């Protein structure tokens, strides 16, 4: 038996400065240390949760547990709730449109009401996917620690927050105590150097990284994304990058906040105002990793080599450039990876050596907490504008929040999509988790901007390929996988 929790496993030695100065710390260390209440006997840290976000599919049993134990919600004012997973995204929906969702949607609303928690229900203009509304409302802030009963909580790392995805028991723990008992993650860094080429987005960078390093490479780690290409990313794209940290196996991912982050946060409804904001901005300036801070692992991705990415298998690490081919499983050195790849190709209906470009698709899904923000819809609309979806393709755009939907409509994007033959939906998780009625038919091939291509994820027998909004849009028009760099939007721009 080990003497203490996994947090005590060997770490890279922390270099200490002479004269007893503070040892250099990573940005993760700085935020974590500011939230640590105490280290528990078993080696885990008890940390304070500044912000708690609830959704309907992982909170019902937590509230039931609270009631059984006769406990109350300790800090309802630090908690918000929304309905996003199981609700219908059909225009004009209500809580009964998807009959399967009535129970959990009703419980979310009543539990929030009973405990005085601000509820962004489906009739509220602030409704949306948890990881979309937390940043856009200013509820998630740089330097904060935010918990949510959903694995993609790492998304808010794009603001320089620690986003901790938890299960239902821990949701109950946060409700009752406003804390989490966690094994301290080990700091890891991935530097994206060079520059993105045309048509290459944050989604392509993160898919490429997962393909290069594997789905378990980040296990137990807090991953800081750094480097010139990350600094150059707009804040919404940083949210996309951090979103898929969980597909990398990481506990969380983050980008150190900078002036762009502060500008993004400024003026949002829950954000600090006036003198509070100025004070906050001063503190955010210190949230950078010190020069000699130690990372357990440090990786470099050369962005100049990254093409638009598309997954070919049933794990996010099964990914290649859109100009590449389906790999031959025999080429994998590891026997189990070989078997899994062969099984993935059978499930996906692909043969080794097939070019990915040209693969016919049946469904195109644009949305999710990965790529359901305004800039994602703008990137897709730019490709779509003035064109038509291929007749054989079922194409839908599901904004990540009602605020995104309104902003897109104010720019006329809904017309661009609708005129092309896309469905224009209400906000929700939709076909990313397919727990509502937005399901890919059995055997159908879906190109999706979401985050998981697992077997049966989008419905029984669904075949999911993950890609960026622009790549999905281009495929929806052509009816087949297309290198977005060949479309008119990018024609004439220098190839990387």
């Amino acid at each position, binding site marked *: 038996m080990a003497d203490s929790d*996994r947090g005590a496993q060997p770490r890279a030695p922390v270099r200490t400065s002479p004269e007893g100065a503070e040892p250099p710390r990573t940005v993760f260390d700085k935020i974590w240390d500011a939230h640590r209440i105490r280290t528990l006997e078993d080696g885990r840290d008890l940390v304070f949760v500044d912000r708690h976000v609830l959704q309907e599919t992982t909170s019902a049993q937590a509230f039931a547990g609270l009631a059984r134990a006769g406990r109350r919600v300790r800090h309802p004012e630090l908690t918000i709730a929304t309905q996003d997973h199981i609700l219908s995204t059909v225009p004009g929906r209500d809580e009964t449109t998807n009959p399967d969702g009535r129970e*959990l949607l009703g419980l979310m609303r009543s539990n929030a009401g009973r405990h005085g928690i601000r509820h962004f229900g489906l009739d509220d203009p602030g409704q949306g996917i948890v990881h979309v509304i937390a940043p856009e409302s200013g509820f998630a802030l740089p330097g904060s620690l935010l918990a949510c009963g959903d694995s993609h909580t790492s998304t808010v790392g794009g603001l320089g927050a620690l986003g901790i995805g938890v*299960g239902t028991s821990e949701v109950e723990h946060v409700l*009752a105590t406003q*804390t989490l008992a966690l094994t301290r993650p080990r700091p890891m860094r991935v530097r994206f150097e060079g520059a993105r080429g045309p048509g290459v987005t944050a989604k392509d960078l993160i898919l490429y990284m997962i393909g290069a390093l594997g789905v*378990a490479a980040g296990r137990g780690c807090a991953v800081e994304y750094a480097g010139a290409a990350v600094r150059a990313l707009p804040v919404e794209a940083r949210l996309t990058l951090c979103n898929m940290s969980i597909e990398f196996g990481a506990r969380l991912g983050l980008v150190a906040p900078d002036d762009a982050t502060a500008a993004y946060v400024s003026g949002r409804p829950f954000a*600090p105002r006036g003198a509070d904001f100025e004070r906050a901005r001063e503190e955010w300036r210190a949230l950078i990793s010190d020069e000699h801070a130690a990372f357990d692992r440090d990786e470099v991705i050369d962005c100049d080599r990254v093409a638009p990415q598309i997954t070919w298998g049933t794990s996010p690490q099964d990914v290649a450039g859109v100009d590449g081919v389906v790999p031959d499983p025999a080429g994998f050195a590891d026997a189990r990876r070989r078997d899994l790849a062969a099984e993935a190709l059978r499930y996906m209906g692909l043969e080794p050596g097939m070019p990915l470009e040209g693969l016919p698709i049946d469904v195109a899904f644009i949305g999710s907490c990965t790529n359901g923000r305004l800039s994602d819809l703008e990137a897709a609309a730019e490709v779509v504008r003035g064109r038509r979806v291929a007749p054989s393709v079922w194409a839908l755009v599901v904004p990540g929040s009602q605020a995104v939907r309104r902003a897109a409509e104010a720019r006329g994007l809904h017309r661009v999509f609708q005129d092309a033959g896309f469905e224009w939906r209400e906000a929700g998780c939709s076909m990313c988790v397919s727990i509502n009625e937005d399901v890919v038919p059995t055997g159908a091939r879906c190109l999706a901007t979401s985050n998981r291509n697992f077997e049966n994820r989008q419905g029984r027998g669904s075949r999911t390929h993950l890609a960026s909004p622009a790549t999905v849009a281009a495929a929806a028009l052509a009816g087949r996988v297309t290198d977005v760099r060949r479309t008119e939007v990018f024609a004439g721009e220098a190839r990387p």
Partner: protein
Amino acid sequence: MRTPLTLLSGVMAVLPDHNVNTDSIIPSAWLRSATADLARGLFGARRFDESGRERPDFVLNQRPFRDAKFLLAGENFGCGSSREAAVWALARFGIRCVFAPAFADIFYENAFRNGVLAGLVDETTWLALAAAVERHRDAPLFHVDLPAATITDPDGIRHGFTVPAGRAEALIRGDDEIDLTLRHIDEIKRFLDTATAERGWLYRSPLDGPLEPQRTTP
């Protein structure tokens, strides 16, 4: 108090795949209700075909593994979604211990919260346990001793596994984590008082009155 876990005897099943995700352990269709039959949903798409018939080639559909209490799983077991129903489904099916070379972080936390032991085994142990199951396919009866952190195979050979001492003790006592944390409640209150004094901007804003109308620009 949860049911304490100390000594257990039962059948061990082997699921060697790496990166088994929680969508596979419990498909989302079983998450639509707080009262779904999660034992039936366990490995739903792998255990049952489209018409609900058992797939005979899946290990948990085979005797004696239908009664498995222990699962020997591959690397990074439980990756993907945070859905705790993955652990609930395993537990309701009857599985009390999962052994693997590594677990995904959130699954690992969820397991202990539900009295399910997630024990780490090294590659040599993994292979030895799998071989023991293979040798005794008719009656792969194993004994798990949590205080000693050992698994005894049907031949009487003992294998070690790793579990952090604190986690093991909590399982043995059947601790309720929330009760444990609430013992520190005064310290938590003091922490918030200090943090509010130092970082008022972080705690003040959402406390203030009703939300202003949503800004239309996301």
